[in-house]
């Protein structure tokens, strides 16, 4: 199974949300990184066939999803970035509602799938509790549970870990990793560690343009041997920002511990450090903005 984006563009009024993006996504977890407003959600919606591209095609197994009405919807599980759940329904009823919308007509099938997925997300003992009594993390688990219902071949999750505490975030990532065996999972996020922990392939979008696609190792290799760390006076940060690509700054009193990527002159007292995925990502999107 493979998803292909071929020269896909999408605009909203005068804003170009995506410009001529071409990308291939295979089985496993695929991370989509980018700043807020970079175009990730638009891309997720285009792949989900919720939006239609202005130009280009989205192909799944060679089929144009716009030309094959309903095909993508039949193999898709989707968790949008900003979603809510009906507070007056219980966890079980919420999932029952979505199984019905997904066209699972047999009540026995529905019951068995819902119980199975509630066990998987650790909410089986809360199945009769109303959603209004759930924490943010529990609601997120219900969100992923509804996406997984019907055993979809493609699961798209848009910023799923935003707002979760570290424990919930780890729990969520484990669920995704378990699901990834025989599916395509597209994880859109601006949190680099989410991709680092569970994804081996990723793409980076910046201002609607695809600026990287490949493995996490390839991305790290881009700045490997080029990443340095130094301590400078706080006032000098802006001066160096013009000359160097700063990937991290940690303020300690009047000084700043600064990490930067360079291919030319080093700042005094710099030492080479091991590059991480986040360093490479920040470098790819043009360094820290502020």
């Amino acid at each position, binding site marked *: 199974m493979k998803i292909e984006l071929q020269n896909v563009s999408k605009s909203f009024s005068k804003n170009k949300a995506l410009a001529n993006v071409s990308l291939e996504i295979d089985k496993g977890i695929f991370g989509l990184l980018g700043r807020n407003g970079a175009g990730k959600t638009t891309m997720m919606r285009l792949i*989900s066939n919720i939006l239609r591209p202005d130009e280009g095609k989205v192909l799944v197994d060679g089929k144009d999803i716009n030309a094959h009405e309903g095909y993508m919807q039949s193999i898709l599980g989707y968790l949008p970035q900003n979603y809510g759940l009906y507070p*007056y329904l219980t966890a079980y009823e919420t999932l029952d509602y979505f199984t019905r919308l*997904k066209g699972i007509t047999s009540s026995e099938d529905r019951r068995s799938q819902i119980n199975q997925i509630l066990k998987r997300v650790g909410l089986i003992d809360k199945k009769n509790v109303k959603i209004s009594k759930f924490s943010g993390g529990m609601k997120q688990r219900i969100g992923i549970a509804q996406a997984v219902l019907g055993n979809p071949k493609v699961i798209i999750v848009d910023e799923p870990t935003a707002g979760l505490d570290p424990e919930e975030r780890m729990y969520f990532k484990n669920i995704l990793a378990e699901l990834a065996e025989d599916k395509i999972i597209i994880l859109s996020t601006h949190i680099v560690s989410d991709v680092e922990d569970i994804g081996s392939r990723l793409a980076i979008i910046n201002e609607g343009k695809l600026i990287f696609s490949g493995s996490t190792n390839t991305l790290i290799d881009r700045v490997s041997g080029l990443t340095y760390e130094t301590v400078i006076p706080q006032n000098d940060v802006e001066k160096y920002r013009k000359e160097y690509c700063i990937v991290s700054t940690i303020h300690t009193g009047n000084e700043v511990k600064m990490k930067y990527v360079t291919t030319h002159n080093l700042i005094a007292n710099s030492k080479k450090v091991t590059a991480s995925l986040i360093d490479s990502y920040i470098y790819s999107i043009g360094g820290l903005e502020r």
Partner: protein
Amino acid sequence: MSKVFAIGNYDCKMKMRKISFWLITILITIYTLLDTIPSNYTRSMDVFNNHKYVALRIMKDTMQLLSIYIAFLCGDCLLKDERLGISEMMASTSLKKREYIYGKFIGNISISTAILFIVTVICTIPQIFMHPNAFELKPYVMSFIILGIIPVIFISGLATYLPYYIRSSKVFLVIFILYWALCEFAEFKGIEYIKYIGYAKFKIFQGQGISPPELGPVLNMCFLLAVGIIPVVVLANTKYMKDIGRI
């Protein structure tokens, strides 16, 4: 069709779990009971022994309060899904737009009919005891269908599509209350759905019970059904949501 009924069923279920649903049901029931159980003074009036009259009076009282509550309870059914982001999740399933809209419409009709039914049944029970040998069920059933269900379809339809078009359930509610007030207090004779009930009220005040429908009420009934149903069908078959174009 199963998706339509799933949406309708769950929509109805959710609204029934709201405390306001039960409060308004109790309030309407009390108001209607007080108005239809005769006091010592009115007990001697013949009209209170006329089941057609009492059935009409139950329906008139119920619909007066219920119509506004339906507008309040059901007016945000589409906008709320958009606001909560549920529409986007729905768009990722195989649900079709028309199934969604019809499901919401059926949900609105179901919840309104449920209140109407509960109030009518409770308010009819005293009549059975008051006239143990002369009770007639037919007038209550007929008034439930003609004076209850038809305005319910009208208001449920309005509450489904109008807030979506004007993009605000609150503005819709204000418009609806103004319209209701015009019909109720200013005898606004233009396009009011209350006109049909107004016809019944006229008969009530005349103390005559209901007679075979005249052309005006029949036309008005057609108007109510058309205004309630046709725009829902149009909405269900045209593009819904500007950038979430699938459903």
